[in-house]
């Protein structure tokens, strides 16, 4: 170099980058993706590819032609949103609805606030909730598990675990099936074991910390456990709560979204406990059978407040041992 470079310290960098983190999240989602491909076959593939492609395309178009700024679709954040959106959809959803969901997720929930890092609500969840409210029938008709099926729109449908709980129409599947994912539901939410593998990977790579998933799952287990202990007839067992619906997906991938979760460990606990409580409340007494999405979005709304009031443990605040 001709001239020496001058810059303030530090002069070295960890080499960490946004795209590395996003790629890490995508890798962590692969087990769940493979599980969904196995359980839902062609439908899962079509929905996931459509959602990812649509999210990336909308991000590209908005960045290039509306914001006229730098294009950053390769950082992986749009792809993560796409996969997460797909994970929240049934595998027999028509393509045009997925595209509408992607537009709301990227266009409304993310780019209109200023793009990556500025969105107050999790884009994939906003897209999903928008679809759920707009097309309640399509969004709550879940295909039953049919390994490696080639059916897409005409897949056979059935009720989810939480639907059964709400309606009381049939008997619950075995916990073992819920853990593996052999139950009807959204693409990514069914296989708890695959999601937990993803969590282990993200913790190992230090992409996220354990606070949010653990606090959510712990709260749900405790709260549902108390209800179950009071009246096992009316309320479902905590195990059913833990392994059914979108709880695992929400706790591991949606609530831990960097942008919309609190910045401190204490804040993360408050956030996680809040999500856990709201989830069980909505599931048990709400109109919808499933409440994770709403719970996360509500707590997303509280995140700035949590960040304002909850400060990290400062150095020198701990009482000193004599």
């Amino acid at each position, binding site marked *: 170099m001709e001239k020496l470079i001058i810059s303030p310290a530090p002069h*070295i960098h960890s080499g960490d*980058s946004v795209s590395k983190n996003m790629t890490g999240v995508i890798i962590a989602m692969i087990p769940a993706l493979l599980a969904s491909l196995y359980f839902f076959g062609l439908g899962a593939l079509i929905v996931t590819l459509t959602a990812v492609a649509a999210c990336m395309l909308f991000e590209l178009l908005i960045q290039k032609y509306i914001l006229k700024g730098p294009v950053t679709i390769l950082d992986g954040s749009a792809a993560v949103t796409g996969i997460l959106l797909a994970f929240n959809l049934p595998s027999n959803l028509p393509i045009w609805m997925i595209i509408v969901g992607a537009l709301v997720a990227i266009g409304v929930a993310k780019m209109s606030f200023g793009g990556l890092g500025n969105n107050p609500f999790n884009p994939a969840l906003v897209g999903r909730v928008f679809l759920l409210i707009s097309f309640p029938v399509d969004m709550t008709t879940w295909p039953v598990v049919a390994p490696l099926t080639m059916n897409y729109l005409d897949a056979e449908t059935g009720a989810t675990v939480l639907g059964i709980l709400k309606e009381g129409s049939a008997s619950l599947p075995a916990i073992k099936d819920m853990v593996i994912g052999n139950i009807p539901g959204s693409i990514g939410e069914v296989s708890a074991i695959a999601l937990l593998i993803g969590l282990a990977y993200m913790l190992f790579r230090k992409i996220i910390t354990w606070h949010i998933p653990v606090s959510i799952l712990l709260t749900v287990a405790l709260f549902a456990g108390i209800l179950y202990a009071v009246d096992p007839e009316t309320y479902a067992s905590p195990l059913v709560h833990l392994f059914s619906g979108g709880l695992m997906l929400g706790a591991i991938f949606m609530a831990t979204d960097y942008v919309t979760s609190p910045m*401190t460990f204490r804040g993360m606990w408050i956030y996680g406990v809040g999500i856990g409580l709201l989830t069980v409340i909505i599931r048990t007494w709400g109109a919808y059978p499933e409440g994770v999405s709403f719970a996360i979005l509500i707590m997303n709304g509280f995140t700035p407040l949590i960040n304002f009031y909850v400060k990290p443990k400062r150095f020198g*605040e701990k009482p000193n041992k004599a």
Partner: protein
Amino acid sequence: MKTFRIGGIHPAENKFSAGQQIKTAALPKQAVIPLAHYIGTPSEAVVKRGDLVKVGQLIGQANGFISANVHSSVSGKVSKIDVQLDASGYKRPAVFIEVDGDDWLETIDRSRDIKRECALSKEEIIEKIKSAGIVGLGGATFPAHVKLMPPPGKKAGVLIINAVECESYLTCDHQLMMEHGEEILIGVTILMKALQVERAIIGVENNKKDAIHHLKKLAANLKGIEVEALKVRYPQGGEKQLIDALIRRQVPSGKIPVEVGAVVQNVATTYAIYEAVQKNKPMIDRVMTITGKDAPNPGNYRVRLGTYLSSVVEEAGGVPAGTGKIVGGGPMMGRSLMNLNIPMAKGSSGVVFLRDEESIRKPVQNCIRCTKCVTVCPMGLEPYLLMAQSERNMWPEMEADRVMDCIECGSCSYTCPSNRPLLDYIRFGKSTVGGIIRSRTAK
């Protein structure tokens, strides 16, 4: 294994010069001895143009409480007292000496014998350290004697020797411990006497196993001196972090270590104190590391103060091709140098050559609020928030969020996946808020 309890990072260690014998650098032709340090008032020159000085002769008188004496590191004729550019490009007063031979003051004991007994009283020891112009050699160059005189009502209970060397690349303290372990331990006993404490802990990071072993063996029959291996973690060499790691006490915000009964001295300072007290040798040289991934001979050199860095670097094989940045000090907290025509000062712990591709910062992206900066901050601050406040000139808010606690270790900028210049803004905010606080207390 012990370490501090909040935050911290672990950068690649890159200790290329580890195990390299300390070489004595050649005597410079001209010595330019700065009268000012980073911390404290500049000392006042007591020689004038044309004076003949000897090695070890006082040339700058300490000026005020937080100031240190400056001694000639060479013998020869004072050619002028002028300004010299320091590492930040500002002019600082310095004494220019044309070197002529190597004539030391007779009072200095230049023999290699180790002198163990010290019959001096507490006050005599402190006075000797003060007159020898010893400053903290870890980088902050805080006068060493000031720390040995705790404010009235405060009593030190334990002496902590900072032998952590948590910065990557640097190895000068490591090598000093290997070669002069015995002298360092004598220095520790002298310091214990000066502070009148019964206990001293030498904290060494576990990537220097040989030094830990060496010191443990030497300290085995010395009463009250412990050698503690610490988990490798940056910024463990920060005074407050080291105290937390070793004795599990956290210095409260805005307070000094003696508040929790600890006094910290750097290991190289301890060696200099041994030399000053036992050998009458003032602070005229120090060991520095010259290193880098492409450095031809990464090594540790004993260099006289006032030697131009360029001549030391020349001796170590010159600047490697493809160097984009030269850092004075460690890569986390050191300063990038504009050129090598800078005289060696008391705080110069090393020269690190960084390659072109390591030198340029990557483009800044949006904050994705990943919490990594909050997680790594060893002071429990929120760097992302402080940066945003600094950008918007929100000084009262910054003060409330305790920007003054920042130790400027750089962990936040190091770890940020979006390459955000967190510390740049925080440092600016800290200096502004510091100014506001000073003007408020002055009223």
